[in-house]
């Protein structure tokens, strides 16, 4: 009891008793989460403003005689004529490791019924991206655990890699798989006690999605034991457009905290098409001039200022990184749409998912021709680089030859060999959802296919063979994989061990 009275006494003693001067305004119109306010003559752009009942808003439109504010939270209690106050602060969200394992809304308030978040720090939602000087080239891999991605479009820590495709082509699955793989690697690294191990913390920002989809994602992450390394920022379709507009920036502020404190983080924006739509809604209500497809003129800046905040910092700046995986939904496979081309030009590469491949059962449906990583093999461990170097070319040649060979009855030996190899690679890359493969196992499988261990196995049996080899490598063939994991290289001795292990496996595989 005495501690409570002490606390109250302390707060009263610290309380300022000076008269305050506040800049205020009055709501003149209120619609769809946006308020037009008269007054607020001293408000600054992007400043947080306070409405009655502790409802917050952000000043987005500064006009000659009014201010346009987006409202955050439940606006049903507000009415015309209510007083609005400036706060002199930018909108901030809680940041730190305390946020891990929690589901929060666009302003960082918990929505998971797990109680209050005791975060000690907060960070502004809008921040200027790191400049050139504190940055460093991307050279550390971020393993997604998806063979098709890690081998052909490798992603590095600090990179921005777009995941793009039509609806229901597995875009979210790739992102979730990557998060699950980070959690697995984190657990393995923490268990090993390696002082040089750098965990990757994840932020998943759900924008404009159905609540049921977000709940499903949370369940998947929980079941995979990955939630303890993840912060989920949720702004579902039912939320007002202001929250949907803000959520990616809030998530980014949380991710930046890890980067600025010398840690590695991964952020998934699912998805930026819906984010652009939310921004379009706000802009139209604010009566901003509209441009192509009714998007406002600054829709490019909306995404560029967000994605530029993902970076790899150099040693002087703490050596942290923030990797971004934005997701964009295309219509009928059209990558030349307004928002897709914008985001393609901002990011360091894209993973394009094709509906046709997905429907053929080739999952993940990564299109070899349209997918690219501008970081390339700099973001691969040496061992993997050695075995996966030619695979993209082989697969691209296969797709081309397969198209032509449909009309040919008699094929020469080299074409036939390329087609055989390509068909096997396609089968090898087929991978179930939420089952990422560790990089050392991927290396061993790729080494096997490059060294003709799968040539005698029929194409239909490749999937079964890969599964059997994975199981074998986790038991008897463990030694070679452990060596790849610890050294990251494919030395002669490791190759020897791999050869022995794969020979042995081949004998057991029927």
């Amino acid at each position: 009891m005495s501690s409570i009275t002490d606390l109250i006494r302390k707060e009263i003693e610290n309380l300022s008793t000076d008269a305050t001067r506040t800049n205020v305004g009055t709501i003149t119109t209120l619609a769809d989460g946006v308020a037009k306010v008269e007054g607020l003559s001293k408000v600054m752009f992007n400043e947080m403003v306070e409405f009655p009942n502790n409802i917050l808003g952000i000043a987005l439109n500064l006009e000659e005689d009014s201010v346009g504010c987006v409202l955050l939270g439940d606006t049903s209690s507000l009415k015309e004529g209510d007083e609005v106050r400036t706060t002199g602060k930018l909108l901030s969200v809680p940041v730190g490791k305390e946020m891990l394992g929690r589901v929060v809304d666009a302003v960082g308030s918990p929505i998971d019924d797990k109680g209050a978040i005791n975060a000690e720090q907060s960070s502004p939602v809008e921040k200027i991206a790191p400049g050139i000087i504190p940055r460093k080239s991307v050279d550390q891999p971020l393993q997604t655990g998806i063979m098709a991605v890690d081998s052909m479009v490798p992603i590095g820590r600090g990179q921005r890699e777009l995941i793009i495709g039509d609806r229901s082509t597995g875009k979210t699955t790739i992102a979730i798989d990557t998060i699950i793989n980070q959690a697995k690697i984190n657990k393995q690294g923490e268990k090993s006690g390696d002082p040089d191990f750098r965990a990757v913390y994840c932020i998943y920002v759900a924008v404009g999605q159905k609540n049921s989809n977000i709940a499903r994602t949370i369940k998947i992450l929980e079941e995979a034991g990955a939630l303890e390394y993840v912060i989920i920022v949720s702004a579902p379709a039912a939320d007002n457009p202001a929250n949907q507009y803000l959520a990616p920036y809030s998530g980014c502020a949380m991710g930046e905290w890890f980067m600025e404190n010398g840690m590695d983080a991964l952020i998934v924006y699912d998805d930026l098409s819906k984010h652009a739509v939310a921004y379009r809604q706000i802009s139209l209500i604010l009566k901003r001039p509209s441009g192509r497809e009714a998007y406002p003129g600054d829709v490019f800046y909306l995404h560029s200022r967000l994605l530029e905040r993902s970076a790899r910092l150099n040693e002087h700046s703490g050596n942290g990184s923030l990797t971004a995986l934005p997701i964009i939904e295309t219509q009928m496979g059209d990558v030349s749409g307004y928002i897709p081309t914008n985001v393609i030009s901002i990011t360091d590469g894209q993973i394009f998912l094709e509906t046709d491949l997905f429907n053929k059962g080739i999952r993940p449906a990564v299109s070899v021709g349209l997918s690219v990583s501008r970081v390339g093999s700099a973001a691969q461990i040496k061992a993997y680089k050695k075995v996966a170097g030619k695979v993209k070319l082989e697969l691209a040649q296969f797709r081309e030859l397969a198209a032509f060979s449909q009309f040919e009855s008699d094929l020469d030996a080299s074409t036939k060999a390329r087609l055989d190899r390509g068909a096997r690679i396609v089968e090898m890359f087929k991978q179930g959802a939420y089952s990422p493969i560790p990089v050392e196992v991927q290396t061993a499988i790729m080494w096997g296919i490059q060294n003709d261990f799968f040539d005698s196995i029929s194409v239909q049996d490749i999937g079964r063979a890969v599964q059997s080899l994975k199981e074998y490598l986790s038991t008897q063939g463990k030694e070679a994989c452990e060596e790849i994991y610890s050294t990251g290289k494919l030395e002669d001795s490791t190759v020897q061990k791999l050869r022995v292990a794969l020979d042995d496996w081949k004998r057991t595989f029927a």
Partner: protein
Amino acid sequence: MPASSKHKTLAKSLLGLSLDEHGHIVESKVKEILSSLKDSKISGLRSLLRYFYTEVRLHEYTYHAIAEIGCKDDPSITNSIIQKLEASVGKNIRLTITENPKIISGCRIRLKDDVYEDTVSNRLHKLEKSFH
């Protein structure tokens, strides 16, 4: 020049004609302007009147202070508030005082977009916020 911008500029000029030497709005001058506008049959009169109304209203805020006090009005309080406001703003101020028991004690003055507040209710509100 679009019609709305033209009306805005015209409304500003009309406001200038409605002021006295202290910069206060004179009711008789406003009435005179309104009657002449009515007779002139100018196009877009409704829009012009809307802009004129906004200009008059916003201008009035610049010298018309509204004070809320927790106790009963007293001429000494009124004079003291007016003197202090005029000293800080540097022009003649018109003051309307209302009694608001919700503020418990103290004074809350709104002049233009600024609110000067030293009330018990505000201090309690600050204390409440500090506990969150």
